[in-house]
């Protein structure tokens, strides 16, 4: 691949630093190219680019945090342990027990807790200085997680209800529906088994993708308009950047929460008895 200076600048800052309003240079809006990264280095033929690096560093950060908080726990907790416990308890009680109940849910607590903190930290990269890129806006990441969840709950459904029972569970088979039963079965089958993993992953991906696009747009615009009278516009854009970052912080948690809540809801559906 041929690289020009402009492209490698793209790698670092996603836009050209010497391009301003009134300097005869067009505004370079963020777009799909903002989500594509050249490999930064490669080890043994495997190319490491920014999202991969962030995913790995984020993983280390999560493990480090929980290691520090939970590896040598005390009955009277320290600060870090207390924070960790609050997060753990929030997911365990607020999400898992709420949807699946304590008895059935207990087994899935580690999975859901890991899922929440993984998604959240990968989202959080969007506002971490110097990184400023949500790893979950690379579709591979939410898709992989959604597939893991999909395999888990589909497997659980078969295990719990047997082959025929599982299909009744997937399709919402109910004799009392009468004539519309075939239609319901087809729609339910389609929406449960085929559309569900897609919506599950795209919901997270699209939110983070759009969020990053917005923050990037205002950030780039702030810089671009920082020239002459444009400074006034630039100030507005800067304020919008701050607002969007705050908004993103909120969205990141919400999306991670929604992701695990849906996971629990799917698992709960798999466990549910047929009526």
């Amino acid at each position, binding site marked *: *691949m041929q*690289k*020009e200076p*402009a*492209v490698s600048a*793209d790698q670092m800052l996603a836009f*050209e630093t010497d*391009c301003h309003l009134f300097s005869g*240079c*067009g505004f*370079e809006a963020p*777009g*799909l*190219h903002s*989500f*594509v990264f*050249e490999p930064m280095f490669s080890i043994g033929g*495997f*190319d490491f*680019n920014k*999202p*991969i690096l962030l*995913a*790995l560093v*984020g*993983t280390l950060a*999560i*493990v480090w945090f*929980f*290691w520090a*908080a*939970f*590896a*040598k*726990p*005390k*009955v009277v*907790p320290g600060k870090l*342990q207390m924070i*960790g*416990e609050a997060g*753990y308890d929030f997911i365990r009680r607020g999400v898992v027990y709420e949807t699946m109940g304590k008895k059935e849910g207990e087994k899935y607590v*580690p*999975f859901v*807790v*890991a*899922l929440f*903190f*993984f998604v959240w930290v990968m989202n959080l990269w969007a506002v971490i200085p110097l990184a400023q890129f949500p*790893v979950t806006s*690379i*579709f*591979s*990441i939410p*898709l*992989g*997680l959604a597939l*893991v969840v999909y395999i888990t709950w589909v497997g659980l459904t078969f295990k719990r209800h047997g082959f025929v029972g599982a299909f009744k569970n997937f399709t919402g088979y109910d004799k009392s529906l009468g004539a519309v039963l075939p239609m319901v079965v087809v729609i339910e089958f389609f929406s449960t088994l085929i559309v569900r993993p897609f919506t599950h992953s*795209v919901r997270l991906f699209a939110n983070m*993708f759009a969020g990053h696009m917005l923050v990037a747009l205002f950030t780039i615009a702030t810089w671009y308009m920082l020239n002459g009278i444009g400074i006034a516009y630039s100030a507005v854009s800067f304020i919008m950047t701050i607002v969007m970052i705050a908004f993103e912080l909120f969205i990141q948690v919400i999306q991670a929460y929604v992701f695990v809540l849906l996971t629990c809801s799917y698992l709960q559906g798999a466990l549910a008895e047929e009526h």
Partner: protein
Amino acid sequence: MNALVNMAETEVPQNPLIPPIPEFVIGLIAFAIVFFFLWKKLLPSINKVLEERREAIEGGIEKAEAAQQEAADVLQQYKDQLAEARHEAARLRAEAQEQGAALIAEMRAEGQRQREEIIAAGHAQVEADRKQAAATLRQDVGKLATDLAGKLVGESLEDHARQSRVIDRFLDGLEEAAEADASGAAR
């Protein structure tokens, strides 16, 4: 223009919904690492401590409850004992009073009886003594008087009846003199 040029140059796979494979693999591995650590090591570790804490708190509460229960029991016991003791004391006091009253009455009666006995005995003794003294006196005096009279008159008073009459008359005279003496002494 620049943007378009860039996009063309970086050979972007234009559909963002086509997942790049390396990221997919790394994402799964990264999640697996997080899941593995939490599942195998960290959550069991924290669960143990949470359980310990729960037990410590509940144990503390139980202990406190037990102590409170014990304290209440002891207090109740103490109160019972106190009430019993009061009751007992009152009973004893009443009994003692009763006994005392009975004792006093008995003593009084006994005293009275003894007094009367003593008085009666005294009276009897005095009467007996007096009678004995009177008899002895009468006898002695009679003899003395007879002897004396015999000597004085030089004649033996053979007539017994006359003798007695003389003696009686003499004695009556003596008694009168004694009584007059006694009243004089009393005065």
